């Protein structure tokens, strides 16, 4: 039976509650703020948005890949690119397909970081897809790894409280070190 891959109500709820939690908790939604604030001035932010969206728009890919829908939360929009099919499949078999859609994990839960990542990834996605020069299998880049890590923490903050650094500035373990198949079933 083919799974309904559209954005289910549960996943919407989970996704949003994740984001809300981050804000309401007042715990600065993990590190996103502390990171993005100093690194991106308003001007840079605008620039990133413009470059990201228009560079993407201008390409054939953006049309082919139903670029406009990239901004939606529907996982189906990701598989507009066949390059994403495997990840879609493995997400469907993962423990989280009931509770989180792609964007819940691959976009920062912080309202600003979220748009930067979207623009940034939108641009590089289109570029890579158009040129076809990306690595297969696709490998997540360090910056996007930080995003996924931050979203785990954002949703599971209370549960993993003792894993957070004892002192600011110390590091913490990668959740996927142990939970590698949470978002994408593997092996």
């Amino acid at each position, binding site marked *: 039976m083919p799974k309904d891959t559209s954005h289910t109500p549960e996943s919407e709820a989970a996704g949003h509650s994740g984001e809300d939690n981050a804000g309401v908790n007042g*715990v600065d939604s*993990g*590190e996103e703020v*502390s990171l993005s604030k100093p690194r991106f001035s308003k001007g840079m932010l605008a620039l990133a948005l413009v470059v990201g969206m228009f560079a993407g728009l201008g390409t054939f890919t953006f049309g082919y890949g139903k670029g406009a829908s990239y901004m939606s939360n529907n996982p189906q929009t990701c598989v507009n690119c066949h390059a994403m099919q495997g990840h879609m499949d493995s997400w469907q078999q993962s423990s989280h397909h009931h509770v989180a859609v792609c964007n819940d994990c691959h976009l920062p839960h912080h309202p600003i970081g979220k748009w930067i990542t979207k623009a940034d990834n939108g641009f590089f996605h289109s570029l890579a897809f158009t040129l076809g020069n990306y690595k297969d299998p696709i490998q997540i880049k360090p910056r996007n790894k930080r995003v996924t890590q931050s979203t785990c923490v954002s949703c599971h903050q209370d549960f993993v409280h*003792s*894993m957070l650094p004892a*002192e600011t500035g110390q590091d913490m373990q990668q959740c996927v070190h142990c939970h590698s*198949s949470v978002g994408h079933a593997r092996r």
Partner: protein
Amino acid sequence: ERKQEARKPFVRLVEVNEVSTDPKPWGVNFPLQYESYLRTADTERTTYGGNHSMSPSKLKEFPWLKRLYAGYAFSIEYREARGHAYMLGDQEVTKRVTEVQQAGACLHCHAAIAPTYRRVGLEKMGKDASEETLGESFDQEAVIAGFKALSQMKYEEVHAELTKTPDGVVKAAEGDPHLGDAHPVSCVDCHDPETMSIRVTRPGFILGIAKLAESDDPVPHLPSIQKWRDSKSKTPYDPNVDATRQEMRSFVCGQCHVEYYCANKMTLTFPWSNGLKVEDLEKEWEETTFPDTEDGKSGGEFYDYVHKETGTPVFKAQHPEFELWSQGIHARAGVSCSDCHMPYERQGATKVSSHWVRSPMLNINKACQTCHHVSEDELKARVDTIQGRTQALMARAASAMTDMLDAIVLAQKAGASEEDLKPIRELQRKAMWRLDYISSENSKGFHADQEAARILGESIDYSRQAQAAAYRLGGSPKPEEGDVAVSQAD
């Protein structure tokens, strides 16, 4: 790497500080960890590991160990390891301690000793060593000074020093020499009492890992050491400053689960200046000479004991878990000791590290299945396969070793000269070191399976070479005594 914001400071119901070697007050603050910590006194065994009410004797299980250790304390009593709760008691009663004079360094890994090191260090340095000062800060300099002062003293003397250090609980009257109890490994050994972050406290490790950092041994599993090397820093590598949290999750264990020298001729030493492989450690011992004696005589070449049957000075290998793990695929993949031996456990609305440090085979679900999505039976079977191969090769190496001893003894009876025997003794030492290395390591090869087999293969090679060479010197049993039989161990 991204830095996370810190967790909220925990609610401290009871104050603990740097002298709090008694875990009870910590347990008030962290009842979940404390409860599981107490379970290290529990008993359950796997095929090759786990706890036991009275730990089985390894000498009985592997009779050849008696010949391997002939002339050394280990041939009197040597048992399987068991839970952390027993570490001090088991040491106090082992015949290796009751029948042989041991050095104070033994306590480095069997008691919560850092505050005692600090106290003695401060005293040596002529500084205040009151309970208050002792509780204030870790003071690494003082700890190392105390460590050096106590290492070569007698076991009993140092044991007595332990109880002269406050433990945070015992309330002793002024002038009462008993200011605290002696405790096995305790919270303060692995945690900063202020922040609760994990840390290392053992001078042996701190000095040893700094030596390793100075070497050029590749350490793909310890990225912070590579980073330190690349930075060309002038300050020695300090695990408490430089290591990642994931590395620290192994370093806390590497304080004790390592090869060492610990008798009374030198300060306790971790032989890591050439690297962490079995040859690297061997090389350090080969290059070591004991310090000159007080009357100015040369201390001579390093050795642990003179093998009684053959008169050959040899090295003793002790539980090199940290070193063998370092050669394995799990270490390379960033999997720490704690990931398997202290896995996270769901406790209500949060997860905590199981402080019931024990065989992961008693806890496969949490210890392995988070990463390996296959059945418990399958994981057990994989471990059994690895350990079975190791055991079979070990039995083979053991019978090569005993054949070698027989041949050397006969060659000596036949009047072989010391000069002729010299290369044979070298082979013997290499063979015994390697066999001991894997038989003393407690995972039966699991921590690095191919490496364990390689080491045993080398041991076999050296034993059999020595045997053949001894045959040339008249070490061959007379044809009547025993025929050429295929000696096949399994």
